[in-house]
């Protein structure tokens, strides 16, 4: 099945490369201006972005199935990273194996556009099955902690992220200008853009800490600046990529910005709890994959149900 990639989607993907080129030029300028300043992290960060955007573009333009497999792989990497940094019980090794199996099944329901199964498989069946498997093994010490840890990971990283993929299989005719791919681009781009915008506004104007106990570098100025920029951009992009009317587009921007912030600090809280700075080293300059998709764990399900309620 060939995904009919609309011109709106192609233009947006082209726009991503435009932003990357500008970002790379800015970094080159910074290196030229201050050759003795250490910009390694920034350089690595931009380089990783090139890889991410290239793989993402490839997945999006190939076909709907390739794109679904791509998001399944993102879930796999994220769950693996999560299970590698949180404490797990030796007794649960086999249970973790079953948890991984939830990924191909969940994304299979997505590829079949089986909405009923997609929406209950993890919250009902996986939720009930894994503790049963743990009980069969019989280790009761730290049982609740282990079950809770595992469910939180599967819910956010498999169930949550799979909502991005489900946008691809929503009826194309409800969004004639860009289809499901347009919705994915709108969601993913705005979520990542919001991260960057909050960071830049915070760097420029940041004074008042917003949540110092969890994330000491986050400020009210960064949050509100990001909120304004993302909402404006949502308003501008929505007419090309989504079926949303202008007032709903503004609300979508607010939703993505606020939810993205919460997703970000939620993973920060997790890292602080474990005592890690980064969740991994998969994406040089960013950290692990969880560091990159943290905001999406919140924005993906929330934006999905927002647009599903309004248009599908």
């Amino acid at each position: 099945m060939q995904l009919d990639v609309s011109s709106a989607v192609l233009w947006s993907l082209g726009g991503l490369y435009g932003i990357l080129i500008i970002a790379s030029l800015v970094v080159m300028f910074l290196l030229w201006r201050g050759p003795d300043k250490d910009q390694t992290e920034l350089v690595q960060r931009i380089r990783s972005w090139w890889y991410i955007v290239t793989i993402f573009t490839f997945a999006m333009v190939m076909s709907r199935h390739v794109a679904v497999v791509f998001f399944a792989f993102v879930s796999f990497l994220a769950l693996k990273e999560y299970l590698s940094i949180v404490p797990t019980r030796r007794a649960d090794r086999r249970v973790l194996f079953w948890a991984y199996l939830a990924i191909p099944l969940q994304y299979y329901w997505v590829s079949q556009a089986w909405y009923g199964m997609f929406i209950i498989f993890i919250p009902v069946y996986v939720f009930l099955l894994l503790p049963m498997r743990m009980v069969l093994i019989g280790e009761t010490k730290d049982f609740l902690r282990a079950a809770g840890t595992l469910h939180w990971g599967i819910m956010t990283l498999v169930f949550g992220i799979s909502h991005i993929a489900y946008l691809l299989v929503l009826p194309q005719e409800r969004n004639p200008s860009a289809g499901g791919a347009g919705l994915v681009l709108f969601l993913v781009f705005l979520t990542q853009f919001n991260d960057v915008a909050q960071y830049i506004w915070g760097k420029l104007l940041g004074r008042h800490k917003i949540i110092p106990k969890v994330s000491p570098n986050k400020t009210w100025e960064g949050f509100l600046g990001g909120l304004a920029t993302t909402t404006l951009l949502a308003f501008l992009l929505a007419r090309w990529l989504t079926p949303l009317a202008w007032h709903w587009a503004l609300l979508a921007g607010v939703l993505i910005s606020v939810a993205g912030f919460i997703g970000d600090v939620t993973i920060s809280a997790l890292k602080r709890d474990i005592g890690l700075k980064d969740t991994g080293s998969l994406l040089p300059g960013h950290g692990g994959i969880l560091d990159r998709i943290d905001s999406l764990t919140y924005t993906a399900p929330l934006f999905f149900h927002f647009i599903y309620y309004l248009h599908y």
Partner: protein
Amino acid sequence: MVRLLRYLFYGCFIRLIVLIVLGLNVRHRHRLPKFGPAIVVANHNSHLDTMVLMSLFPLRLLPKLHPVAAMDYFLGSRLFSWFTLKVVGILPIKRKVERGDDNPLEPCNQALREGQVLIVFPEGSRGEPEHLQSFKGGIARLAENNPAVPVVPVFLHGLGKALPKGEAVLVPFFCDVFIGEPMSWTGDRRSYMHQLDERMKLLAAEGNFPTWE
């Protein structure tokens, strides 16, 4: 033909499992030896340890890479022996030495003279998952016999979770590989073992690992 099989095994199959199913956090990769002779020593928790270490090296070094392994365990049936010797490429040595035997490390000395890179697990067996065991003295003897050969200590974490001893199901985990500075011969075995032990403990302390009990 067998060489091609070995390239396919390590170059495709093992790399796919190690890099996609598992995934590695490698620190200080530049400290790995770039040519032989050299000895890589690591802690041992899983059959995957060898596979991970082998996949850290560029494929052009593959003909020179040999994991040193226990003869009694890895030379069984004819097919299995063929596989471990020709495809995995182990260098078999005797674990139990009897009176009148030649120096059991002689095959290793010979390989090092030929400029090979040996992978050695001085813990002797895979042991309890994710617990460092003390190293056995054979490694000091090997270093003493080859004082000019650099020994690179490597600390591995997570592979005992992914595929511990006695388990057949591989469960994906990101694994950590911390590579230490190359060590040279200290002059006597006791101080050498002490230094190696310290290096391994320092490498292990670089990580912040979740509990696994």
